[in-house]
């Protein structure tokens, strides 16, 4: 059995002549409209107090209140000011058409009215209103979208501006880095911070998920980490960070690698990021893998640090999995190191600008990946003039 057709729109028709009213009702109801047919402008205005017709059909020449006056009052009433009005005029009254439009009519028809043309004009009037509503809704969506895009663009600018000035040089160290978000803003973050018993701590944070929510958590994690590493050894700082994140209940977790730079080497805690690499003369002499689950996952997690020698000319490389992603294996860092050109012994960290590194990151083939992850890179090393040992990795 066919489902009943939904009722069509309501049309209010006003004419003082009984025969015309019968004709209008017949034409409207045959076309499936709900017809409200009244004999005067005053009655029409009373009906409009309770009804919201899709179209109003007004006879121009009526005693007491003519169609133009009714149209003016309809337009002056907020509830009905947008209802389309079709004015009916006798053929010898065509001089009234200009006045009808001035009063607010949208269209006119001359009597005698052809049924098909009459219904076609009604449908056109209704469609014009629907199109107008759709266009207005589309404009509102576009406006909202533009506001979101503006916000995202501003958030991206702020995120980049909050990164530490790079390349950084201090106490014989040089540190370069770049963050390339997968979308406008990323859930990755890199930071440099004072640490307990070390020259400086470099931190790479990769919060689960993408976009603004992840970026907010990454900023909070960076802030927490900054406080924690200033007062605690790195493993304890990570344990406390994990507890904080687990208790926060944001549902997010953060893969974090921190490296404490010291004159005698580097102390690393990796929790969930690809192996942290030590490069010497273009060769990878140490890969420090994860030593604990990413903070925010399991409350009882413990963290251990690993120390490596880092002599003059050696490079420490931290990267998020957005850099290993193009090579299909999150834990294989050598293809990314090669792709980024970081194994070139002639490379000078203190000359690596973020824009240069970002360009190297973009060239890794991330464009081929559907919804690429955020990609972040930190390269740190002792300046070549600084004396230091060249011991192998202390595993």
């Amino acid at each position: 059995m066919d489902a009943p057709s939904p009722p069509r729109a309501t049309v209010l028709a006003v004419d003082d002549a009984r025969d015309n009213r019968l004709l209008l009702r017949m034409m409207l109801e045959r076309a499936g409209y709900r017809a409200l047919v009244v004999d005067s402008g005053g009655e029409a205005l009373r009906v409009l107090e309770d009804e919201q017709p899709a179209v109003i059909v007004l006879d121009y020449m009526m005693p007491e209140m003519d169609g133009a006056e009714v149209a003016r009052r309809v337009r002056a009433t907020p509830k009905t000011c947008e209802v389309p009005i079709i004015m009916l005029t006798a053929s010898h009254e065509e001089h009234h058409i200009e006045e009808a439009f001035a009063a607010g009519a949208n269209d006119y028809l001359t009597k005698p009215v052809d049924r098909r043309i009459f219904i076609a004009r009604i449908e056109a009037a209704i469609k014009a209103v629907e199109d107008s509503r759709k266009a207005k809704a589309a404009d509102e969506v576009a406006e909202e979208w533009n506001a979101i895009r503006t916000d995202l663009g501003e958030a991206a600018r702020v995120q980049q501006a909050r990164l530490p000035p790079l390349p950084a040089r201090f106490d014989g160290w040089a540190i370069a880095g770049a963050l390339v978000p997968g979308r406008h803003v990323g859930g990755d973050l890199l930071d440099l911070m004072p640490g307990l018993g070390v020259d400086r701590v470099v931190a790479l944070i990769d919060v689960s998920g993408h976009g603004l929510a992840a970026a907010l958590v990454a900023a909070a994690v960076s802030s927490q980490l900054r406080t924690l590493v200033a007062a605690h050894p790195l493993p304890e700082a990570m344990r406390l960070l994990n507890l904080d994140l687990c208790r926060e209940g944001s549902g997010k977790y953060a893969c974090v690698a921190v490296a404490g730079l010291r004159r005698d080497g580097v102390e690393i805690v990796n929790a969930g990021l690809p192996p942290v690499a030590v490069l010497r003369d273009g060769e990878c002499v140490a890969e420090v893998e994860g030593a604990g689950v990413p903070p925010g996952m399991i409350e009882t997690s413990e963290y251990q640090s690993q120390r490596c020698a880092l002599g003059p000319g050696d490079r420490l490389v931290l990267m998020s999995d957005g850099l290993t992603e193009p090579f299909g294996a999150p834990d294989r860092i050598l293809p990314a190191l090669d792709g980024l050109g970081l194994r070139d012994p002639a490379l000078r960290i203190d000359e690596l600008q973020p824009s240069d590194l970002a360009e190297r990151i973009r060239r890794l083939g991330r464009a081929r990946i559907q919804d690429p992850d955020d990609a972040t890179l930190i390269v740190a090393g002792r300046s070549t003039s600084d004396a230091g040992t060249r011991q192998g990795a202390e595993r």
Partner: protein
Amino acid sequence: MNTAQQSASEVRILKIHNKRIDAAAAGEFRQKLGEVVEKGNTRFVLDLSDVELMDSTGLGALVAALKASSDAGRVVIAGAQGAVATLFKITRMDQVFRLYPTTVEAAAAFKRASGK
């Protein structure tokens, strides 16, 4: 999310047929896991053998399900391979979840643990 469930000797097996568990699929993945946990399945095997990629949001959903179950030993993973297995390794979640190559081995491990 395309899943299938089967029960074998009180061990519920939830197979994920999606190739990717990423941000787009993580919400539904989390819901499916939550339903299995809420039904009080005492032991269940998550079969990831068809999954080629799981990102951080997918892993987050899995951990949320683990936390929702009162006993981590109730959830084991079967069939994780390639990049999915690597994700478990680098995040050390292979120390939190028990991973088995197949659902048969996972179910057998449950039986051994319960002495059946």
